[in-house]
């Protein structure tokens, strides 16, 4: 092959690879456009969720207030059966309000609008508060609750409201997924990881358990292991997604150890004080 022929061949090969580069660049450009469109749509969905949950709160507020006016006898006494019915309206309304609140928290988290308001507080106080709030439900389901708090645990600096939300969510799930006469427990400990002192919280139960292949799924948004309409446990499917977001916002981790039929143990860690 002459030098001229060699150069011509090389030129043609370069032109072909130029063509391929142009094609890849066009594909990349198209992919970037599609990503931007999907992000915009995701943003719209998040905004829709935030708006709708805000708008749902207003009529719910009115329903609950009217029902409480009747329950509290402010407009006169009710018969026992009327009272039972009005209590049903209030408890259904409050449950719906919590679910709407959950959607709003999720939407804010997805839009990165959740900010931490750290204060110093005792984890013991939070655990006692959450335990007390759940006493009626535990009693109704005939479940026992054991609370084990590390006596040497110092006050922590974190967003109390958000940590309370996480613990309440985990306890709520434990109660929901544990059949009558079962056991639920709450444990705390102080652990150290790479020189950082962490608060470790465990929420365990003797309930139905979660198959290992579902351990990731349950922390994903809108995911439920049983998502059929006839599923025995209802909810937004956002509780654990929100819990994970709130824990991660603190620089912590959340995970589960469980197998079907053996109960579940949920754990999370957060630094006992925010990183400097």
């Amino acid at each position, binding site marked *: 092959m002459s030098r001229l022929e060699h150069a011509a061949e090389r030129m043609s090969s370069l032109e072909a690879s130029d063509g391929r580069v142009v094609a890849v660049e066009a594909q990349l450009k198209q992919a970037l456009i599609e990503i931007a469109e999907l992000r915009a749509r995701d943003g719209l969905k998040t905004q829709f969720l935030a708006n709708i949950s*805000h708008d749902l*709160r*207003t*009529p*719910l*507020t*009115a329903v*609950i*207030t*009217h029902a*409480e*006016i009747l*329950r*509290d006898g*402010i*407009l006169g006494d009710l018969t026992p059966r009327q009272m039972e019915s009005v209590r049903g309206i209030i408890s259904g309304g409050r449950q719906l*309000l919590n679910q709407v*609140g959950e959607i709003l928290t999720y939407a804010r988290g997805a839009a990165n609008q959740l*900010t931490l*308001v750290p*204060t110093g507080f005792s984890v013991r106080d939070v655990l006692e508060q959450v335990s007390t709030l759940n006493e009626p439900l535990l009693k109704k389901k005939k479940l026992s609750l054991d609370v084990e708090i590390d006596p040497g645990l110092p006050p922590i600096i974190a*967003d*109390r*409201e958000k940590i309370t939300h996480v613990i309440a969510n985990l306890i709520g799930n434990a109660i929901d997924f544990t059949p009558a006469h079962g056991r639920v427990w709450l444990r705390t400990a102080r652990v150290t990881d790479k020189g950082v002192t962490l608060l470790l919280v465990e929420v365990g139960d003797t309930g139905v358990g979660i198959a290992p292949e579902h351990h990731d799924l349950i922390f994903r948004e809108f995911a439920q292991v049983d998502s059929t309409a006839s599923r025995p446990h209802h909810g937004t499917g956002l509780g654990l997604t929100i819990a994970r977001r709130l824990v991660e916002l603190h620089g912590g981790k959340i995970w589960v150890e469980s197998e079907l039929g053996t109960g579940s143990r949920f754990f999370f860690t957060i630094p006992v004080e925010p990183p400097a």
Partner: protein
Amino acid sequence: MLLVEDSALVTDALRILLEASNRRVSVAASIADALTVGGTDPAALVLVDLTLPDGDGLALIEPLRAAGCRTFVALTGHDDASTAARCRAAGCADVLVKPVPARELIGKVAQWVDGVNDVA
């Protein structure tokens, strides 16, 4: 007392509750309405929603205080510490998260208006 809230559903419920406990209640559905109502008939207590169609309810505190209204309490749907801190910094005596339990509201109103400490 003056209730500033843009949802008639909520004001109807609160008015029934407050009037049943012998309170005289004026209602305003916007900042503009509230400035007119509160300016002509200053209220001992203003319950103010944060999200009003013409702006942030907290913007009412200064002009209404200057007009003679005494105590301001925020009504909000957001149960979070930063909202509460913002309301208190703007001069609210308290921050109530909707729906406020009926008995609790009556007790608190008595506390703010009459100085009576009988939170039920």
